[in-house]
């Protein structure tokens, strides 16, 4: 048994998201080989070699991997998959974009977004926005799997001492090219790994009012999230969206403010340890999953909460 993991990185450093896939690979068993494909990615390859559980790193340093273009990466991963029983990536937007292309090139099914490894062939994955959990068994020669980060603790970034081997690139397909990006800048923790998340919904009324949530976030060391309605209305950027079709989070504390609790939203946060809901409608479905529900006008309760946290 041997697993090839597609590692995300910034060329200088590895992305913490990939550490979750290492844990899933360790549960599957056997060798864990990290692929670091990039342009000037020696720093990331060296960092991957230190990850506990990684037995070998393949570094492919070539211009065509400077951006995570699926058309260039998928043939490389498919080629390197040979001899491995499993190919894994974390189910980030990068992993979701590339891995099905790899699976199709290998003519195998992909098992998306697993939350549990039952055995080397059998995995549990949520379907229907997490309203059902399916256990599926694959008999494909190579199992292509994406891993839901929140269900696998990150592997330790230090402690390993894997060897780094150089691999060669497959060239640029010329099918696509990177034009630019507009990334949200924030000094707060990353949404999917934050210990505390405070999210706002349509009830926030506008983007300006999210400042109230940011104030609390800064007091709690929290990340700020949102419902789809808040993103659609332009209150906050798309990368704030928590839910079935946005990000999945499972912090120690999730505070939902002015969010009704549609199943699509619950799909992204109902595995949080403690859920707080602030909503003026006592019938709002969010209260059914909340450990602590506060029926109140958020424009009164949120400033009060902010003040109370100063004293707490």
């Amino acid at each position, binding site marked *: 048994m041997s697993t090839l993991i597609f590692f995300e990185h910034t060329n200088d450093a590895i992305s913490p998201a990939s550490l979750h896939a290492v844990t899933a690979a360790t549960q599957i068993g056997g060798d864990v080989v990290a692929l670091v494909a990039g342009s000037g990615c020696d720093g990331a390859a060296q960092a991957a070699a230190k990850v506990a559980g990684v037995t070998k790193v393949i570094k492919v340093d070539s211009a065509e991997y400077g951006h995570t273009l699926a058309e260039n990466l998928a043939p490389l991963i498919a080629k390197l998959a040979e001899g491995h029983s499993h190919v894994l990536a974390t189910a980030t937007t990068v992993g979701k974009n590339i891995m099905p292309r790899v699976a*199709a090139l290998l003519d195998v099914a992909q098992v998306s977004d697993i939350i549990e490894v039952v055995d080397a062939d059998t995995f549990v994955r949520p379907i229907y*926005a997490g309203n*059902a*959990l399916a*256990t599926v068994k694959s008999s494909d020669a190579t199992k292509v799997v994406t891993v839901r980060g929140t269900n696998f603790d990150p592997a330790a970034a230090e402690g390993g001492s894997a060897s780094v081997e150089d691999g060669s690139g497959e060239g640029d397909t010329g*099918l696509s090219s990177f034009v630019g990006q507009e990334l949200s800048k924030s000094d707060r923790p990353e949404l999917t790994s934050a210990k505390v998340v405070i999210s706002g919904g349509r009830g926030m009324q506008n983007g300006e009012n999210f400042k109230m949530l940011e104030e609390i976030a800064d007091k709690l060391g929290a990340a700020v999230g949102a419902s789809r309605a808040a993103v659609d209305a332009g209150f906050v950027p798309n990368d704030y969206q928590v839910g079935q079709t946005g990000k999945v989070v499972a912090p120690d504390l999730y505070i939902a403010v002015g969010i009704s609790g549609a199943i699509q939203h619950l799909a992204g946060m109902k595995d949080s340890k403690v859920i*707080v809901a602030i909503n003026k409608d006592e019938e709002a479905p969010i209260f059914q999953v909340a*450990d602590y529900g506060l029926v109140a006008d958020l424009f009164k309760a949120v400033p009060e909460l902010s003040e109370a946290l100063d004293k707490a």
Partner: protein
Amino acid sequence: MKVLVPVKRVIDYNVKVRVKADQSGVELANVKMSMNPFDEIAVEEAIRLKEAGKATEVIAVSIGPTQAQETIRTALAMGADRGIHVVHDGDVEPLAVAKMLKGIVEKESPDLCILGKQAIDDDCNQTGQMLSALLGWSQATFASKIEIGDGDLTVTREVDGGLETIKVKAPAIVTTDLRLNEPRYASLPNIMKAKKKPIEQMSPADLGVDPAPRLQTVKVVEPPKREGGTKVADVAELVSKLKNEAKVI
């Protein structure tokens, strides 16, 4: 430019699904079915391209049971020109769907295929990428903006960190994200007109594809229930509970 839009019939997003007692799947009998919402966005985008004079024809394709015809009719009522129905009962996985769509692409030679980024039933998020791989085409997934250029497309994508813009060569596969557009409702006259639009039928075998699933579903169960529902009286009680009971702040 010819645009192909695959559409899937799924349990309506408002339905609370129930797991079958025998753990073989979820209850589909007497449940409201609709077009996958991401596919509605795909149909809308294709129609807008046609209205803008950029697309010449929009073809809606569905792979599914007899009733999938209704889903195709919905696309036709929104404004698609004609339909293709690959009649197939039972589960079909993204890889098999991609193979069937490849067969249709080879027959129809579209310049662009727009798919939903994921179906809200199996939540796989695979078909567009797989189709792109099988065809050796470019792919632009999770699109929130599409600009048609000369022989290429510039697509803005929703990614974990924010937005990314890429340029892809035509012919291309694009998958839709929520912010690409707001799909229209079909008007009554258009629903009537759609009844006369042609739908061609074929079988997986006609396309040379074996639709048998590769994955075996061992069981389908309900997730563990969350015990919620406790209310607090005010902010002071909330803070005290979070501090002393839950110990999370």
